[in-house]
């Protein structure tokens, strides 16, 4: 125990000595949360649209002004014909082109089907789909109102759809991003710093000197991992504070649970860092390999995209993706107020990964040195 204390003392001394890393530990969470949360938005606002109106009716004029009033669209130009509009899409100044067919108002009067055409730049397919959905919403509402006006009574649709958004009623995208970015932050610190720190001992040859002392390998490993567990949890606390005070992210669930699962998660990730470092002989190698794993884990974790939309095999890969579980846990606890029993599945996933990774890394560490 006393030796562990001396080793920890040495580790912290070295961390404090390394001014660059020390600064990064403080700056990284602030920058990530301030910049990324705002930048990585999936909200679709201010889509640039152009309109070709063949109808020139009062209803088509109302549609144009409704579209203009919507926060999603910004009307760029009203063109005379379709080919003129196409040019605008091709040169990139418009995202969408809406064509209102001749007889649009007439068919609405007669209760027949009116025609609207949407031409979208689908290079960004998500944008095209969302634009379509928004347009449909605006047009349906307008036509509904119109039929009420001309008939004098409200037509009662057989089915009315009422949506309500749970856990994030304002659809605040930042509430969704903050927990995700926090997980990335904790992971970067946990994995990179650990693996690099261990390889550094190899690179400098200091591990040889430690190996001829009575320090046990297990003590040495614990002394290597503990500081980064503390730093990881510290980063999480710092990040949560930024989320709370700057973005007003709700914290519905228990923070104890957040830190409890985070400890488990970090243990696994530190184990992975240790495992990678035992395969590497230089900091360069281990940085590259860690980067590879982290990038795959982050992009597959569901931080930006919905995991449910992934192909079957991708979802299966996520079974061994610690970030996938932890992002799920963080969002559930913070936004939904989920408790331990709601989360037993991802927590079990994290635990299994942690046990496997730590076991593998310790076994491998023994073998290679």
């Amino acid at each position, binding site marked *: 125990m006393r030796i562990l204390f*001396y080793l920890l003392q*040495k580790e912290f001394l*070295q961390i404090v000595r390394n001014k660059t890393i020390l600064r990064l530990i403080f700056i990284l969470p602030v920058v990530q949360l301030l910049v990324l949360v705002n930048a990585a938005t999936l909200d679709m606002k201010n889509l640039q649209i152009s309109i070709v109106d063949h109808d020139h009716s009062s209803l088509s004029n109302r549609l144009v002004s409704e579209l203009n009033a919507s926060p999603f669209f910004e009307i760029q130009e009203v063109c005379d014909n379709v080919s003129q509009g196409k040019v605008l899409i091709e040169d990139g100044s418009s995202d969408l082109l809406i064509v209102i067919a001749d007889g649009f108002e007439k068919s609405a009067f007669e209760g027949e089907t009116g025609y609207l055409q949407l031409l979208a730049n689908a290079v960004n397919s998500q944008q095209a789909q969302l634009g379509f959905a928004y347009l449909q919403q605006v047009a349906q509402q307008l036509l509904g109102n119109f039929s009420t006006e001309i008939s004098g009574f409200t037509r009662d649709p057989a089915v009315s759809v009422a949506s309500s958004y749970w856990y994030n009623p304002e659809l605040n995208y930042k509430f969704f991003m903050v927990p995700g970015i926090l997980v990335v932050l904790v992971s970067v610190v946990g994995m990179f710093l650990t693996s690099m720190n261990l390889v550094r001992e190899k690179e*400098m*040859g200091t591990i*040889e*000197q430690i190996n*001829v002392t*009575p*320090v046990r390998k297990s003590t040495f490993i614990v002394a290597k991992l503990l500081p980064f567990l503390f730093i990881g949890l510290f980063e999480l606390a710092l990040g949560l504070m930024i989320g709370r005070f700057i973005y007003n992210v709700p914290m519905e669930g228990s923070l104890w649970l957040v830190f409890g699962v985070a400890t488990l998660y970090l243990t696994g990730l530190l184990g992975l860092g240790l495992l990678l470092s035992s395969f590497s002989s230089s900091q360069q190698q281990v940085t590259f390999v860690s980067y590879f794993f982290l990038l795959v884990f982050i992009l597959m974790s569901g931080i930006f995209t919905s995991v449910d939309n992934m192909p079957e095999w991708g979802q299966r890969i996520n079974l061994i993706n610690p970030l996938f579980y932890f992002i799920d846990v963080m969002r559930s606890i913070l936004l939904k107020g989920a408790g331990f029993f709601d989360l037993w599945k991802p927590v079990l996933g994290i635990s299994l990964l942690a046990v496997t990774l730590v076991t593998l890394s310790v076994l491998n560490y023994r073998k290679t040195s």
Partner: protein
Amino acid sequence: MISIQSLSKKFDKIRALDRVTFTVNEGELFGVIGPDGAGKSTLFRIVLSLLLPDEGTVSIWGLDPVRDYRAIRKIVGYMPGKFSLYEDLTVEENLRFFASVFETSIEENYYLIKDIYQQIEPFRKRPAGKLSGGMKQKLALSCALIHKPRLLVLDEPTTGVDAVSRSEFWSILQKLKGFGITIIVATPYMDEASLCDRVALIQKGRILDVATPSEIVAGFKDKLFGVSGGNMHHLLLACRQFGGTATVFPFGEELHLTFNGGGDSSEELEKYLKTKGVEEVFIRPVSPDIEDRFMALMSRHQE
């Protein structure tokens, strides 16, 4: 007493150690002399329990590095060939750290390192990475000694260190012997061999000879001559072409050579060399030193 019995170690197809056998007596300053790649570091790493041997045994006062590595790590001090202390920690922090992992303190064994450490003490607040070569070496020795090891293992401690620091270092080792510490030191420098109590000559993983430096020199029975004159390379080739020479090696500014049968054929050689265009030949009898013996043993083993 340290006893090494028939120690062998292979790396892939290379025999790093081939049935190495010798003993080191208590309190001895024992040199392991051999060129780079002779297997010195491999031998040390096995003795220090950092590497497992393929065959053979090591006994350090009855302890086996394979079985009793934990006990051995308490009684040995090791100074690797490459500087391997924490460069981002200060001189004092390094020393304190290594004292504490052995559960002792600088104060407790200060008398052992006093002479060495006093020279670097003015820089005790300086990061170890910013020390000069000679000071790094002294710090490394201090750190290897701070737990008062019974056996001190030094792997090429003087490689890359200036001549003054080298001789200073050897006088420190002599002093440490006075504290009853057994020292095993590896060096590629033949001149350092004569400063040891006994030496083992090692080449390509094999022990050529184990004896005191004077015994080793005495093992050189043939008459030895120093030859100089003209272009060195040309001279070397010519002497080897001359049928009567047994061994010819460059040695400092001249060649050291022996004649077949250990006799003296210097007159014939001189004549031969003149026919080869070497005008000013100077041949003199010289007394052999360890390097000559080493070269002789080496060429005999290669045959």
